[in-house]
């Protein structure tokens, strides 16, 4: 498992992409999965930055190899609970004039991730999002688009 922390700023994205690509290279993860992993990480990190209340510090990102892919987590603290797996789906079939220019990020996370899990620890006001991305058919993979939720209450 590898872990790095990043400043709560969009300027960190370049450094985050260096971290993900470095992890893929050093762990010999299928490079075909990297664009999707970068996209998911960016959407989750951007969400953290844009909804920040100014309280939070740096944002840790952890990456771990699993069978046929990777598992990645982002931690945000201190924050109120916001379960991204409960955000309503976006209707992408609407015509252009009815489409919103924002709000596609979590939709793309759901589309590209094998699974997304949300954890919240009330004692430390700590939010953690874990996703998994694998090649199709791996023994560790779950049904594409499936979501899990686990609240860690003290």
């Amino acid at each position, binding site marked *: 498992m590898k872990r790095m922390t990043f400043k709560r700023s969009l300027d960190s994205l370049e450094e985050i*992409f260096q971290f993900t690509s470095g992890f893929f290279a050093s762990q010999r993860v299928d490079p075909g999965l990297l664009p999707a992993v970068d996209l998911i990480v960016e959407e989750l990190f951007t969400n953290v930055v844009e909804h920040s209340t100014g309280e939070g510090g740096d944002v840790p990102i952890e990456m771990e190899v699993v069978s046929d892919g990777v598992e990645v987590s982002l931690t945000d603290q201190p924050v109120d609970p916001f379960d991204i797996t409960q955000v309503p789906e976006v209707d992408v079939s609407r015509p252009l004039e009815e489409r919103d220019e924002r709000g596609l990020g979590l939709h793309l996370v759901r589309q590209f991730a094998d699974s997304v899990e949300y954890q919240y620890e009330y004692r430390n006001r700590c939010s953690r999002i874990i996703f998994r991305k694998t090649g199709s058919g791996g023994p560790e993979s779950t049904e594409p688009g499936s979501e899990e939720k686990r609240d860690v209450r003290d």
Partner: protein
Amino acid sequence: MFEIERSDDGAVVLRGRLDAAQREKAQQYLDELDSNVVLDCRNLEYISSAGLGVLLKTQKRLMAHGSNLRLVGVNSHLRDVFRYSGFDRIFEIEPAD
């Protein structure tokens, strides 16, 4: 790294990664366009929802005046992003060879 510029044939060429940190740069450039535009995506490696928002806003503005954006040279990852976002319904998209 992200670059946007006009080519000699009039297309707007996108290069690199259009992520949330590059949104304003892309939007400022595309806001200056006021006619049919071909976006050359052959060297666009990556796009996130921030980049999609830029394209959507530009397409809305252009279509209100009878023009549009056409995306050419789109790689397979970008095609997946566009398809999952429903952009294949609102943009003319030509894949890379």
